[in-house]
C-alpha cells in the first residue's frame, strides 16, 4: 500500500492505495464520493469523468497514484458555493438532459470541460465532443440542448419538440 495525497473539490485528502487502485475507486471507496460512477470496464462509457488539473479524465483509466499532488474536481464539487446548481447543472434540469441520472455526472463534467475549451460550440461540435460519454436514456437530444443553453446560445437551433 502506498500513501497518496491530492486535492479533491478544494479539500486536501490522502489515503492508502494499492498500485492497482484506480482513481475512481479511490474517490468512491476511499473518499465516499459516490457521485462518480462506473458504467463499464473498457474506458468507453464516460460515467466516471472527473477533472484532473483542469482536464476531463476518465477516472477508471488512471491509477490513484498517478493523481498524486493533482487538483481533482468531481461532480460533488460542481455546484455553486451556496449549494445552488451551476449554470451547466441548471441547464440539464431545465432542458431535461437526464433521466436515470447514472451517466449524468460524467456528462456534466465533460460538458464543463467542453465549454471551458469552446465557450460557444455548435451542435455538431457538442455531439463530437461527447463521443466518450454514453447515455442510454435520453437519445442525447436534450443533453445537446442543455449544453447549448448553458453556453448561452439559442436552443431553437435544435429541432423543435
Amino acid at each position, binding site marked *: 500500500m502506498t500513501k497518496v495525497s491530492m486535492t479533491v473539490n478544494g479539500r486536501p485528502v490522502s489515503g492508502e492505495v*494499492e498500485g*492497482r487502485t484506480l482513481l475512481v475507486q479511490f474517490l*468512491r*471507496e476511499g473518499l465516499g*464520493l*459516490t*457521485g*462518480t*460512477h*462506473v*458504467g*463499464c*470496464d*473498457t474506458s*468507453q*462509457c464516460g*460515467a466516471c469523468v472527473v477533472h484532473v488539473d483542469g482536464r476531463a479524465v476518465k477516472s477508471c483509466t488512471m491509477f490513484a497514484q498517478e493523481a498524486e499532488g493533482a487538483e481533482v474536481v*468531481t*461532480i*460533488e464539487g*460542481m*455546484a455553486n458555493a451556496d449549494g445552488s*446548481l451551476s449554470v451547466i*447543472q441548471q441547464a*440539464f*434540469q*431545465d432542458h*431535461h438532459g*437526464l*433521466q*436515470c*441520472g*447514472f*451517466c*449524468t*455526472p460524467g456528462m*456534466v463534467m465533460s460538458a464543463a470541460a467542453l465549454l471551458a475549451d469552446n465557450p460557444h460550440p455548435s*451542435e455538431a461540435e*457538442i*455531439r*463530437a465532443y*461527447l*463521443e466518450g*460519454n*454514453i*447515455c*442510454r*436514456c*435520453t*437519445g*442525447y*437530444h*436534450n*443533453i*445537446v440542448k442543455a449544453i447549448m443553453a448553458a453556453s448561452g446560445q439559442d436552443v431553437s437551433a*435544435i*429541432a*423543435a*419538440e
Partner: protein
Amino acid sequence: MPKDHGIGAPSKRREDVRFLTGQGRYTDDINLHGQAHAVFVRSQVAHGRLNGVDTAAAAAMPGVIRVFTGADFEGVGGLPCGWQVTDRHGQPMQEPGHPVLAQGKVRHVGDPIAVVVAETLEQARDAAEAVEVDIEELEPVLDMKAALAEGAPKVHDDLTGNLCYDWGFVEENREAVNAAFQKAAHVTTLELVNQRLVPNAMEPRVAVGDYAPATGDSTLYTTSQNPHVIRLLMGAFVLGIPEHKLRVVAPDVGGGFGSKIFHYAEEAFCTFAAKQLRRPVKWTCTRSESFITDAHGRDHVTKIELALDAEGHFQALRTETYANMGAYLSTFAPSVPTWLHGTLMAGNYKTPLIYVNVKAVFTNTVPVDAYRGAGRPEATFQLERVIDKAAREMGMDPVDIRRKNFITEFPYATPVAVEYDTGDYHATMDKLAEIADLAGFEKRLADSKARGKLRGLGINSYIEACGIAPSHLVGQLGARAGLYESATVRVNATGGLVVMTGSHSHGQGHETSFAQVVADMIGIDENMVEIVHGDTANTPMGMGTYGSRSLAVGGSAMVRATEKIIAKAKKIAAHLMEAAPEDIELKDGAFTVAGTDKSVAWGDVTLAAYVPHNYPLEEIEPGLEETAFYDPNNFTYPAGAYSCEVEVDPDTGKVEICSFAAADDFGNIVNPMIVDGQVHGGLAQGIGQALLEGAAYDEYGQLLSGSYMDYAMPRAGDMPSFTVDHSCQTPCTHNPLGVKGCGEAGAIGSPPAVVNAVVDALQRSGHTNVTHIDMPLTPARVWAAMQG
C-alpha cells in the same frame, strides 16, 4: 398557454437535483458495515458437462471467507419462470430447471459455476482466478433452426429436444387464413431477422444481501424495476423466506429497459450467502459480466406473408417466427414472442384474418427476455416492412396503402384478441406530414442528389398494447402473477402528502409526474407531495415498472387512493362547516359549501383528521390515509406515425439520419417535457437497433460483441435531433387519467422507419433488387446490398 403546474405542466424534475450534484444513491453506493465481496466464476464455454469444481486453492487465498459451488444450492429452489405458454396442441411449454449455480452442466458463456466471497473485492477477484473448473466441452447449439433438427445436441438433457413451445395464434383461424391466401390477388413475402440486442442500462446490476441474526430478517438491495416481484419470486420460490422476513430495496436505479425486471441468480446468491456467513455480501457486476448475464432482447427470425386484394386492401396475414429463449427461461421470456407479439400483428390496420406461429427455442446463449417494447417492436418491424414491400410491388404510395387500411372506428376488436379503445391513425399521419414536411421531400432529394448522396424516406405507423395489464386476462394467457398496481396516500397533519407507490422510477421521473397528478386533484402545490417508491418495507405490494404501465396502472391506483382521501376529507370538512358532505366542493386546496361563502382550507381539514377534537368520530375514523389497488380492464393502445429521412453514401454504404419525426398519440399528457424525453430515448434505442447494435456469437458460442469496444452503443454523434409531437390525443377510455403510456413507443416505431428509408434510398437510386437488408444496417451490409 401551457399550464405551469399540475397535470399537463412541464414541471422540472425534482429528482434531477440529487443526480446533478452526485447525491443519487444507487445500489453500488451502498456499503454496509462488515460487508464481504462476491465474485462469480462463470463458464467460459457455451455448453459443457461440469465434472468438478476444485475450490481448495482459492479457499486458501488471502482474505477468502468461503467459496460456494452448485453443491451449496442443492437444497435451494431454482429461478422460477413467471409465465407458462400453452402450445398449439394444448400442451404446456417445456420448462427446464434454472439453478442459482450450475448443477451438472453449463449452458452458456457466463453461466455461474462458483462464487468466491472475500474480505475485499480485489481478494475475491484474485481467488476467483484460482478456482479450478473441470468442464467436458459439448457441442453447442446456437442457430435456432439447427437446434430443432433431428439429433441436435440438447441444451437440457431432461427435455425432449430444444423446442420450448410451438404456439399458434389464433389456432382456429389457421385454415381460414390459408384459404384467404389462396384467393388473394397479391401476396407479399418477406423473411427477416430481428437481431439480438443487449439492453445496456448504464448502471450495471448490483446486489447487496444483509441478514440480521437477532430477528431473522433478510434484506436485499438490488438494481430492480420491481422490488416486490423480486421479493415474491426469491422469497417464495428460491430461498423459502416468507415476505414478512424479507425486505427488498431498489434505490436509485440507473436505467432498466426491461433487463432489471427479472430475478437473477446473483440476487438470490447474495441474500443466501449473507445468511450463511452472518455478514453482508455485495456483488457488483462488471460491464463485461453484464453482457453475458443480463437478459438479452429480441432475437427473432421471421417469415411474414401479407395477402392483398387488387386495390391493396389487406386480406390476411400469416407469420412464422423462431424466437430464441437462450439457455434458460428468464422470468417473463415465454410471454414476449407470444402474447406481447402475436396480439400486435393487426397493427393499425383492418386485416380481417391473422395467424401467428411462434417456435420458441433453447440455445446455448444468454437467456432472452423483455427489452424496451418486448415483442411489440418485433411485431411492428415485420408488419411495417412487409407493408412497405407490398406497396412497392403493387406500385402504391407507402402512405396511401396504410391509410387505405387504417382502422377508423373504435372500439375495434382485432382478430388477434385485443380491443383497441380509441385512436385516430389518420390524425397522427396528418400530423407527421406537417412536422416532417413530407411535401418538401422531393426538394431535399434533389439537394442530396446534387451532393452525390442517395436520399430515402421511410414512413410507418405503429400501435402498441401497453399499460400492462388486466390480471384476469393475463392469467388466462399463462401469467403466474397479477398485474395490478398499488398506491398508499398518506396525508400528514399539516397537509403534506406522501404517496407510496408500487411502481418504480428508474429514469421515468415519477417523483415529479406522480406528484403533479395528486397536487392537481387536490389543488395544492406540487412540493406538498412526496413520492416514495422502491422499498418493499414502505410501499404496498405492487408489480413495478415496465410495459409503459406506471402512469396508466400505477397512476390510476394513485388517483383512486386520492379520490378516497378527498371523499373522506369532504366528510370532515362537512362536519367542520356543519353542512352535508354532498354539498362540499374541493377547489384550489379549499373546501367550500356549494352556494355559500363558507370555506375551510385543506390544512384545516388534515389537522382535524389527526387532532380530532371536533370530529365526527361516530361516523369516520381519525387519520387520513388510503390505499388503492388498480387492475385495468384493458391494455392501453398508444399509436403514431413516424418518418425517417436518410442519406446513404454510395461509395461506403454509410447511412446518415438526416431527420426523424414522431407524431404520437399517448392520450392525455401529465408532463410533456418528460414525455418528449421518453420518446427521444426510445427513438435512440430503435435507431441504435436499426443501424448499430447487434449481439454477435461465434460458432463456439462466444459472445463477440461483449464490451463497449465491440457492441456499438449509440453515441451522440450517431443520433440526429428529433422532431416529436404528441398533440394528437385520443384519451384512453378506461383509466381515470385517460393516459396511454409513452415509454416504449419510440423503440417500437423507429426501426421500420429507418429500414424503410434506407431501402427507399437504394430503390430510388436504381438498386431495385434491394427489397430488404437485415439490421443493423452497417455500412458493410448496405454496401454489399448495393453490389447486388
